[in-house]
């Protein structure tokens, strides 16, 4: 009887410490997301034939049926998740969009707010050191109708290729370092 009691007590302590350890030791999704991601695949689900009037959508993509949701098509882009929720999205033609990113829920929902106040929500289906998979979020119980796949890439290489530009903070930091490197300022 005493052994059973001890076992129950041990299990209680074990489960509690496991939970505490898991919160403290697990990879923080915000940290894991930081850096540059290159878009390698994108799938937009096509609408079923005859499910919506043709005049309401012109390319057959199902999210046209959700006019209240802001949907931005992302294809072959390069995303840089910067600290303090800043996001830079570099397009293939070199245009750069600045946005704000946040994680919600248990770190499984990515929200992106653009400067013009449009808002995108994605479910993070996979986040590993080298791979990121996002599904366009249509609500808690509905499967995604757009799937974006990214692979980890070097931010320096992207900047050298002209697909990303340094942020104002990067420029300030570089200027500071340059000033410190000047012969007169050497300490």
């Amino acid at each position, binding site marked *: 009887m005493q052994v059973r009691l001890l076992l129950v007590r041990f299990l209680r302590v074990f489960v509690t410490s496991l*939970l*505490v*350890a*898991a*919160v*403290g*030791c*697990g*990879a*923080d*999704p*915000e940290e894991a997301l930081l850096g540059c991601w290159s878009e390698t695949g994108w799938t937009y689900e096509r609408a079923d034939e005859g499910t919506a009037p043709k005049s309401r959508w012109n390319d057959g993509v199902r999210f046209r049926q959700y006019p209240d949701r802001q949907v931005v098509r992302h294809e072959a882009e390069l995303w840089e998740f910067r600290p303090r*929720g800043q996001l830079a999205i570099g397009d293939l033609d070199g245009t750069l969009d600045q946005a704000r990113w*946040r*994680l*919600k*829920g*248990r*770190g*499984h*929902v990515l*929200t992106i707010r653009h400067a013009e106040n449009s808002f995108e*929500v994605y479910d993070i289906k996979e986040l590993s050191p080298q791979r990121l998979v996002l599904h366009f979020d249509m609500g*808690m119980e509905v499967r995604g109708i757009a799937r974006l796949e990214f692979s980890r890439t070097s931010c320096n290489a992207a900047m050298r290729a002209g697909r990303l530009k340094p942020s104002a903070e990067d420029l300030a930091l570089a200027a500071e370092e340059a000033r410190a490197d000047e012969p007169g300022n050497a300490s």
Partner: protein
Amino acid sequence: MMLLERAEKRERHHDLWLGGSTAAVAGFVNVCSVIAFFAFASNVTGHVAIFAEELVKGHTHQIGVVGAWLGAFIGGAFVANLCVTFIGDRNPRIGRAIPLVLEILALVGVGYYGHQYYAETLTETEYLVGILLFTMGLQNSMVATVSNGIVKTTHLTGLSTDLGMELSMMLQQRYRRDDRLRFKLKLHLLIFAMYILGGVLGGVLFLRIDFQAFHFAALGLAFILVHDLVIARLTAAESLLQRESEVPRFRN
């Protein structure tokens, strides 16, 4: 009195009022939580399923977070029951009022913090969802304990099952006249409807006034408390007057 009434004096209309008002608050808080944090505040079944999913995927951070959320709900239920049964043994009204006061304070705190300071970091989100789950655990346990398990306002899976069973039984003549069954059906329909109504109200208010919407949920609970305290006072004064009138008066 909806909440503070002693178990032996409880009547059906107490449970109807208590079930309706607290279900509206639960729906309100749940929808606000989904809009603000993309996480449910009262869907424990869903969180358990997610917990298992995260275990399978081996996401240690998420396992810890969802585990802590489940712990928060259970913790809330534990605290409420402890107050009602332990403190309630000495002073039933205070024992029942404490969980409600705690829930009001937590909701006001979430509303205030969210409106003033929330920078949408993941850590903040995780803590705030945890607090909301704690409040829902408090509420569900308090209401269930006070009503002897008749009323459960955040447990819609069980409620939907009961509702389906009761509707099926109402099709049969032998059950249709059962007063107890008719009351349960009425109560469950009311809870269901008020949960949806609270959810709609929460959604509309949150989209308009942001986190300050949580103050309205707190206000709803404060109404229950104030209502019960006023009724308690009036009842006490009435019985005092009655006792005084029964005491024989003697002339000097």
